[in-house]
């Protein structure tokens, strides 16, 4: 979508000089980048967009095809209701509006892996309009980018060119696999609200984690289920006009997106500072060279001759449909992230871990509801509990340790009833056998000994048995304190309150 589409409103918090890791030169210069992202995301549906063929990745070429997705003469498309629902939910998750009327259009152009030589897409009446993507960067800074729209279309097949490097140039023949032809795609079109490569990636990551959580897409970049284009231009900081943009096509990893945009920003600044002019064109990204290169100028752009697809009747989407779908959404990853950071004072990195994993977050929140101690609970959830889950190849939420039991454990630690060593042992038992933390502590006698007299008696015993260490200490070698502390803990079979042990040792040694 063009940078000139609509002027950027002064929308929301926009940190200055964001993205500490950004290698781009724009931070230190007088230039500001203006970036608009468009991405295509394959939807996760049982069947293809307009026929009953299975929607799956890979497989023997041309095995998941039928008259409809091969565009055999006479075949007709029938829309996939699940794909339409996915799209509505995706839009609603970002606050998009869902117009009551929508339709499919044909986008006409010839391409060997596009069976009909037109793509069924949406032109002027997309299923969703507007919306805002709130995103955050690794360092915790946040931003937002308006969405123009998310619309529904179908994917093409895939060509393999029989040439040395797999490119079309020099190929003597081409092979086409139509397994992917007709897979439902949503095209997310962002407004030019993004100002750095890091922000672009953060925006895409937020889209990806949200779509994954909604179950509308697996967002597997390695399988091409998220493909991204970026419109990049630069202008002098403070300028209101947009610069001339270049469109970088088909980046298929977050790493490529970050590097390609950063490289393109630098290129444009160098062109402008050298007195040159940026030309409007499409540029490809060369991963190996780390640079973008000119593909074709926009003057050669297609006339797609969009018109309403006469094989498909217009769609009416009722308020009831929209509300039914809205009810399935739940909290978005961003809302969760913001709650953890702002209200629960969790650091950005760990909040991101929770934001990325709805089941983990749900487990965590249930435990917090019972314990009232977010940070204490989080330490277990992201620490030992996650380790146990990883070791057994399962998920925290699938173990025998319930959120209530975890909350009990947190409370036991917080009150000093058990020490951290004992807590680890209790957690192991909870994970393997389930049950209540209190019961395990009682059964295994793990309660911390905080009784002054009892601990003092052990300290006395240990000091008596280690006369040489006592002498060393009093002679100035205070580093024997660690050894003596360990000896007391051992003598108490790990249950003595460690701080009380330290206190009593010093008291008696210094006496």
């Amino acid at each position, binding site marked *: 979508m063009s940078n000139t589409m609509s002027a950027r409103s002064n929308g929301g918090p926009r940190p200055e000089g964001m993205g500490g890791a950004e290698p781009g030169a724009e931070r230190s210069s007088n230039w500001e980048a203006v970036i608009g992202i468009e991405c295509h995301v394959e939807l996760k549906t049982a069947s293809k967009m307009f026929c009953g063929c299975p929607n799956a990745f890979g497989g023997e070429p041309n095995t998941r095809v039928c*008259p409809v997705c*091969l*565009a*055999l*003469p*006479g*075949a*007709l*498309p*029938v*829309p996939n209701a699940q794909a339409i629902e996915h799209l509505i939910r995706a839009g609603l998750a970002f606050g998009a509006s869902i117009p009551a009327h929508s339709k499919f259009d*044909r986008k*006409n152009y*010839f391409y*060997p892996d596009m*069976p*009909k*030589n*037109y793509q069924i897409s949406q032109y002027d009446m997309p299923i969703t309009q507007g919306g805002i993507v709130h995103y955050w960067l690794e360092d915790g800074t946040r931003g937002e980018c308006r969405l123009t729209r998310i619309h529904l279309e179908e994917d093409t097949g895939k060509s393999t060119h029989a040439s040395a490097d797999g490119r079309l140039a020099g190929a003597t023949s*081409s092979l*086409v696999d139509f397994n992917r032809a007709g897979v439902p795609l949503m095209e997310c079109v962002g407004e030019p609200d993004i100002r750095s490569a890091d922000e672009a990636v953060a925006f895409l990551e937020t889209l990806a984690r949200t779509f994954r959580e909604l179950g509308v897409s697996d967002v597997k970049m390695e399988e091409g289920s998220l493909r991204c284009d970026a419109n990049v231009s630069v202008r002098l900081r403070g300028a209101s006009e947009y610069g001339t943009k270049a469109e970088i096509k088909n980046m298929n990893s977050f790493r490529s997106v970050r590097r390609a945009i950063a490289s393109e920003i630098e290129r444009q600044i160098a062109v402008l500072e050298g007195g040159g002019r940026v030309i409007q064109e499409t540029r490809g990204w060369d991963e190996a060279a780390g640079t973008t290169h000119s593909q074709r100028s926009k003057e050669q752009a297609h*006339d797609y*001759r*969009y*018109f309403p*697809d*006469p*094989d*498909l*009747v217009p769609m009416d989407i009722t308020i009831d449909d929209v509300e039914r779908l809205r009810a399935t959404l739940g909290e978005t990853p961003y809302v969760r992230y913001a709650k953890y950071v702002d209200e629960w004072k969790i650091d950005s990195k760990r909040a991101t871990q929770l934001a990325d994993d709805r089941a983990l977050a749900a487990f965590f929140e249930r435990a917090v509801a019972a314990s009232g101690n977010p940070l204490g609970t989080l330490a277990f959830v992201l620490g030992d509990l996650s380790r146990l889950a990883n070791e057994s190849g399962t998920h925290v939420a699938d173990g025998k340790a319930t959120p209530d039991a975890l909350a009990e454990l947190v409370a036991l630690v917080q009150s000093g009833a058990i020490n951290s060593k004992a807590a680890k042992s209790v957690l192991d038992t909870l994970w393997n056998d389930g049950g209540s933390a209190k019961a395990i502590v009682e059964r295994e006698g793990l309660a911390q000994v905080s009784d002054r007299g009892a601990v003092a008696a052990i300290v006395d015993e240990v000091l008596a048995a280690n006369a040489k260490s006592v002498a060393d200490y009093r002679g100035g070698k205070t580093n024997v304190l660690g050894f003596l502390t360990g000896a007391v803990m051992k003598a108490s079979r790990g249950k003595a309150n460690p701080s009380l042990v330290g206190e009593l040792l010093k008291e008696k040694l210094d006496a």
Partner: protein
Amino acid sequence: MTDPVRDSAIAIARAVNAREASAAEIAETMIPHVARADAELDAYLELTPELMRAHAARVDARIAAGETLPLAGVPLAIKDNMCVTGTTTTAGSKILEHFIAPYTATAVQRLLDAGALPIGKTNLDEFAMGSSGENSALKRTRNPYDHERVPGGSSAGSAAAVGGFEATVSLGSDTGGSIREPAAFCNAVGFKPTYGRVSRYGLIAFASSLDQIGPFARSVEDAALVYDVMGGHDPLDATSVDRPLEPSAPHLRDDLRGVRVGIVKEFATSDLGAEIDACYRQAYADLEALGAELVEVELPTAKYGLATYYLIAPAECSSNLARFDGVRYGLRVDAADVGEMYEATRAAGFGPEVKRRILIGTYALSSGYYDAYYVKAQKARTRIAEDFARAFERCDVIASPAASSPAFGFNAKTDPVAMYLMDYYTIPVSLAGLPSLSVPCGAVVPDGGSRPMPMGLQLATPLFTERALLGYAHAYERATRHADRLTPRTMEMEGSMSLRAPSGNRA
């Protein structure tokens, strides 16, 4: 006992269901008859005797098992823009000359499931674009009533096959008149149901928003029977209407008492020549004699029908025909790269009329012209439909000529626009999506001809009123019986074939 060449579909199905005749016997009678007669007429692009025999055997087995099939043993011809598994499906084009369909169109499948016997695939104007049959890239079908004249188009072969007694019923497709006009030329009943009533799945698209499959028959009753079997919702066609189909066959009527027949002011026949004018005046008088009340109605925007149609239909066709590119099936002309391959394939594969319409449509949809042409045409289409809706406040059915003249000679119309004018009366009805049919209404001896040629009366009714429409047409047909007054040339030459009497042990 039945004569599968001359009998109606109703009579044949009744006889086969009653085991008075077998489907196998019908097939064995029709196969040599059609082979012989079609050497004259060239209605068929492909005859499918083995398929016909296989279906006949299946029908006989099902009847023996106690089933009753509405179209048991009825010989059926299928326009060659409908896919039938294992048959070449050419759309009358070089680009699909050797394409063998791997699936069967819904409408055809429903007829076959109901017991119809597929005789073969019939000739047509390339991709159903034309009004004479002369645009077929593969064959020249003759008019059964004068072999020097065209059968009409685009459903040339399907009309000629039924009019020439080479099929009991046939399927055509109508986009702007492609069933009604050739039906009129070939002395047949040709019926275009409401848009969306019959599935288009498996029909090679010309203009998706207008295309509709419909039957040809030698009587309204037979047309109604075929329609009742193949109509109704199809989940494979998103434009197919999900609304119950009221069976029309049991509701055919014998008079027109209480029916208001609209005669369109703008469709005056006085300009068509004295003989043709007289023919239609008589037809309207006959309707009145059956008890109808004639009322004049106005369709002020109907005169924009042709212009509107020749923007919308080419626009859709330019997109629909893009898939014929040599990549996956059909003709491929090899070239240096894929772009040149497309060009060479399409240049060699499409005929001049198809290319003309692709160019018009591409132009009409291109940026800068879209609003001026395509959008404006869509607005005009809405106005035309509104005109019809207003007219139907004053009448129940609109009567008009089905075509501007009887069948003309080969190569008589070289100007494309003169050819387009043949569909002057049918196109507005198509733009409005209305159900409409042509029923024989007499004959005139055309200029330069010596034999009387059939004429067709077009009747059109509001959306989804097929049952009423067929009822009116049936009443008119019963009272006038114009079709019976003409005999096709092939029948004159060879006389009729008839089945041997069933063997004695048959019930």
